[in-house]
């Protein structure tokens, strides 16, 4: 009996497969459209996860607390003397001055991020050496030496050269020599970055002595970041205090918002597809009605016809899921998520040429499965249940 039932199910599966083959043009069209929707959703999910992971990983190099002076709600240069006011706060390991600004290249219409750092003052392990692919960070006495991100090399068309010049505000040229290059792994943050020592940055932007744009605070115990941040706020009320977790959260929110926006658009596309599938499945053509009636006359049960529709839908949606997710993986890994980069990635004109490692947790796969395959099954099998109740004698008439 069990063997007979198994044989029956195999025959039904065989009929479903042959039915898909018989309507191969229609089946292939549905499969391709469905796979495209899943591809978009899975790509989006993968690239969002990959970017979030990457940002999280790279932000470990940033200081635990960053201080910026605010005036009328806008940022302005912060006096170096503020360091002395922080000396009394217990738990602060070091306060390092930084100049952070943007250099607009009018020829290439691109913004570069310029960072002047007192590298020698930074604690061990926070000196960004690990982020370098080659060379070394410029020391305080190494005038005109810079470390650049990948896109800067390309944008300045340095090729074999190691020197270039940037304009000061008075349009005089300041020469630089590339002493190192950031690793591609840190592209998401260093792609458009030029790092130099504090004196060079001050010279490039004409910032008066005794002023910087930020003060980077390194703490002894990372668990005390919030407490120390609170104490700093109390000591320097006009200063904006940004903690690393806050910055990480901001990145997550930015990617999350973009991802959410994109997901809503894609889910709308999926919903449209499912509605179309429902409409198609519920509106039986005369040929389909006749086929069902013939099958019933020949002894097929309502449940057999439902089983055929179920297997057809499982095969189409399963294949579409497999094709869509594989294509998404290829798109993210080998094509660097080319379709979504303008939506999901930064505001710089120099688009990072990222090598993303997509992360797809079981939960994500199940989520995409739940949002795609299950609605499709429901959209095709439920109307099939209605169609399976076609009176069998409708095949006997004309």
């Amino acid at each position: 009996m069990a063997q007979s039932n198994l044989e029956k199910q195999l025959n039904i599966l065989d009929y479903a497969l042959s039915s898909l083959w018989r309507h191969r043009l229609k089946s292939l069209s549905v499969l391709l459209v469905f796979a495209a929707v899943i591809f978009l959703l899975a790509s989006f999910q993968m690239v969002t996860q990959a970017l979030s992971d990457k940002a999280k990983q790279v932000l470990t190099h940033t200081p635990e607390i960053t201080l910026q002076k605010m005036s009328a709600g806008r940022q302005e240069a912060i006096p170096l003397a503020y360091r002395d006011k922080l000396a009394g706060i217990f738990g602060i390991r070091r306060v390092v001055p930084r100049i952070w600004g943007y250099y607009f290249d009018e020829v290439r219409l691109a913004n570069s991020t310029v960072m002047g750092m007192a590298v020698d003052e930074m604690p061990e392990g926070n000196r960004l050496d690990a982020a370098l692919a080659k060379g070394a960070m410029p020391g305080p006495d190494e005038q005109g030496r810079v470390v650049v991100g990948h896109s800067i090399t390309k944008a300045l068309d340095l090729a074999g050269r190691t020197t270039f010049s940037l304009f000061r505000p008075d349009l005089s040229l300041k020469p630089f020599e590339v002493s190192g290059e950031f690793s591609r792994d840190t592209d998401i943050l260093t792609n458009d970055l030029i790092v130099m020592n504090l004196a060079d940055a001050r010279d490039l932007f004409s910032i008066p002595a005794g002023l910087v744009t930020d003060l980077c605070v390194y703490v002894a115990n990372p668990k005390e970041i919030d407490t120390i941040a609170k104490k700093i706020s109390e000591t320097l009320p006009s200063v904006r205090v940004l903690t690393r977790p806050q910055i990480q959260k901001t990145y997550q929110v930015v990617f999350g918002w973009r991802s959410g926006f994109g997901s809503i658009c894609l889910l709308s596309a999926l919903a449209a597809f499912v509605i179309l599938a429902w409409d198609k499945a519920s509106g039986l053509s005369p040929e389909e009605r006749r086929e069902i009636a013939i099958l019933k006359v020949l002894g097929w049960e309502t449940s057999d016809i439902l089983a055929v529709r179920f297997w057809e839908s499982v095969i189409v949606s399963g294949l579409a899921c497999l094709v869509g997710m594989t294509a998404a993986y290829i798109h993210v890994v080998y094509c660097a998520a080319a379709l979504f980069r303008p939506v999901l990635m930064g505001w710089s004109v120099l688009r990072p040429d990222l090598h993303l490692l997509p992360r797809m947790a079981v939960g994500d796969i199940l989520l995409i499965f739940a949002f795609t395959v299950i609605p499709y099954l429901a959209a095709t099998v439920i109307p099939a249940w209605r169609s399976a109740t076609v009176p069998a004698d409708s095949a006997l008439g004309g």
Partner: protein
Amino acid sequence: MIIECKDLIKSYPVETTMVHAVNAVNLSVNKGDFLVILGHSGSGKTTLLSLIGGLTSPDRGQVYIDGVENWQQSDQALSTMRNSKIGFIFQFASLIPTLSVMENILLPLSFGRNPSGSRELALDILAQIGLADKANAFPSQLSGGQQRRVAIARSFINCPDIILADEPTGDLDEETEKDILALFRRYNEQGTTFVVVTHNSDLAATQKGARVFSMRQGVLSAQGA
């Protein structure tokens, strides 16, 4: 008794009134009988076949097949009964256009009991109806008469106890009609019960020993053998 109908009534709404397609029909059929039911178009013949075959439910009355009432069974049991005991020949060819002739014929066997030799049996029946060379053709490649013959072959593939045939020779030329009726006779002699509805009164004359009925406005009346 292989078929028994008791006080069968089936009505359909036509505009504002109900029309009795089958009106108080009583019928008893023994195993091996050959019944011919004559009647004009719209007389209720096809509805009676549907009721006997369990394709539609009566408004009143009962149909028994081998002593079991059709509509007292589950959908599964009724389907199994249709599959194993009854072969249907429809008024129109009713083949699935995307299946080949052989696949159409073997369709009733797709229920977990696919006996070895079924393909050979199908080829044998195809040979008997003169379509041995069309096994791999598709319905669209056949004439109307050839499609009808394939549908007839399909009805025999399960070796059913009962054949319910609705105008089985409607599209056939004279020669093929003779062959088909000879095939019916052979199966009938082997014990298969036939209920044939037709408007062709000559068909009754060709079947020796056939019980002939006529149907008019849903009412069935015997004409004698």
